Structures are given as structure tokens and as C-alpha cells.
């Protein structure tokens, strides 16, 4: 799993690629929460999944967790680029009832 974090003003853009299983999700969780903690002014999180080649329900848990972190500070959460398989699991859990889907 590869993770890149880009912060511009109050917006944090994260791109995940590779395999997002429980092992990788734990690492992603730690790194994203660190970035959010360091900059309390961040009020929008864009998570780009277009590089994800594998995802299971641990990825779903990590995504829902980050949604909660940013929602707690009243921020916006946008999920983009989920392809075939990741999308199937996200939809099974009805995630788009909670989080915004971006382009």
C-alpha cells in the first residue's frame, strides 16, 4: 500500500494505492490521523481510491473511521475513484448514504 498526503489550505487530499487489507488499513489510519491532528484547520478530506488494487472490509472500516474523524470537527468527507471491487464492498455497506462521492 502507498499513501500520499497533500494539504492545500484547509483541504487534505489523500491518494491510496495498492492493496488495502487490515495490515495496510492500520498503517493508513495512523498516518492519516497524524496529518489531521497536526493541522486542526483541515475541514475537508478527499480520499482517492483510484490506485487501489485490492480492498476488503478492513478498508471499509478505515474509510468509515476517517469519515467520523473529519465529521466530528464538522468537516467534509469526499470519496473518489473507487473501482469495481472496492466499490462493491462500499456499496454493500451503503457507504454513500453517509459519505459524499466525488469525481
Amino acid at each position, binding site marked *: 500500500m502507498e499513501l500520499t498526503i497533500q494539504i492545500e489550505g484547509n483541504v487534505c487530499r489523500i491518494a491510496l494505492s495498492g492493496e488495502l*487489507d487490515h495490515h495496510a488499513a492500520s498503517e493508513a489510519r495512523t498516518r492519516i490521523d497524524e496529518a489531521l491532528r497536526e493541522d486542526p484547520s483541515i475541514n475537508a478530506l478527499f480520499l482517492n481510491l483510484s490506485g487501489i488494487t*485490492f480492498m*476488503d472490509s478492513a478498508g471499509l*472500516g478505515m474509510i468509515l473511521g476517517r469519515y467520523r474523524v473529519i465529521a466530528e470537527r464538522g468537516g467534509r468527507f469526499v470519496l473518489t475513484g473507487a473501482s469495481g471491487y472496492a466499490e462493491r464492498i462500499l456499496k454493500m455497506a451503503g457507504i454513500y448514504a453517509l459519505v459524499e462521492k466525488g469525481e
Partner: protein
Amino acid sequence: MNMFENEMHISFSALSQNESFARMVAAAFAAHLNPTIEDLTDIRTAVSEAVTNAIIHGYENRGGMVVMDAYIRDCVFEIAIRDEGKGIEDVPLAMQPFYTSAPDMERSGMGFSVMEAFMDGVVVESTPGKGTSVIMKKYIAEAAYHA
């Protein structure tokens, strides 16, 4: 069609680094049936769920050995994932969508639902204090098999 039989048994340390190893082994073994990429992704995902559960729920991240037994019989791929961890008190409850005993670990409670959606049969046997077995089946289309 000739009956084709092949089997594989593996046990490995209950470490989260081994989750990707376990999926890879299961997929490489199932590849003998000439599955589609979609079949393989289904198998990789379901195996990842069951193996992760053994590591984090069964052994509570304290280590132990996870066992996978896989069988190919004609066009059926069967895989059992076992642990000798803490077991499940109420299996029907555990299998309900969104039920998780570990929300603090950001578990979504969707593991069993994913296994059921992606495989053609999931049976869970568990004895509290003894461990858990998850037995899953997948039918690989004959067309693919003969390709």
C-alpha cells in the same frame, strides 16, 4: 471430464503481514481451475476476511497459527480457514451484517457478509475457548475450466 483432485494444507504465524501471503497462496492454488479474474478476486477477498478475523478476533493479535486447507475437486474450490483462538459464543449473531465485537479497532462488522456475498457457500463452526473454522466453497464455471 476426468475427475481432477488436488489438495493443500498450510499453517502460518498469525501476523498481519501474512494476510497478503495467505490470499496469494489461496489464489495461486485456485488458479489450477483456470478461474476468471473475478473468481480470483472473490476468493482473495473472502480469504483475506477469514484470515484477518483469525488473527485479530481468534488470537486477539497475540499470535498463534492460522491453518488453511484447500481442495480442488472437479470445478469446486473449497477452502477452510481455522484458528485455535477464543472462538465465537453466538455464531448467528456474529454473522449478521454490521455486527462487530471490535468497533474500537474500526471493524465494520461486514467480514462475514463479504464472505457470503463473494463465495458460493460459507459455513462457520466455532467452540468458545477452542477456536473457529470458516469453510467456504466456490464453483468455477466449466467453460473457464476447459479454456
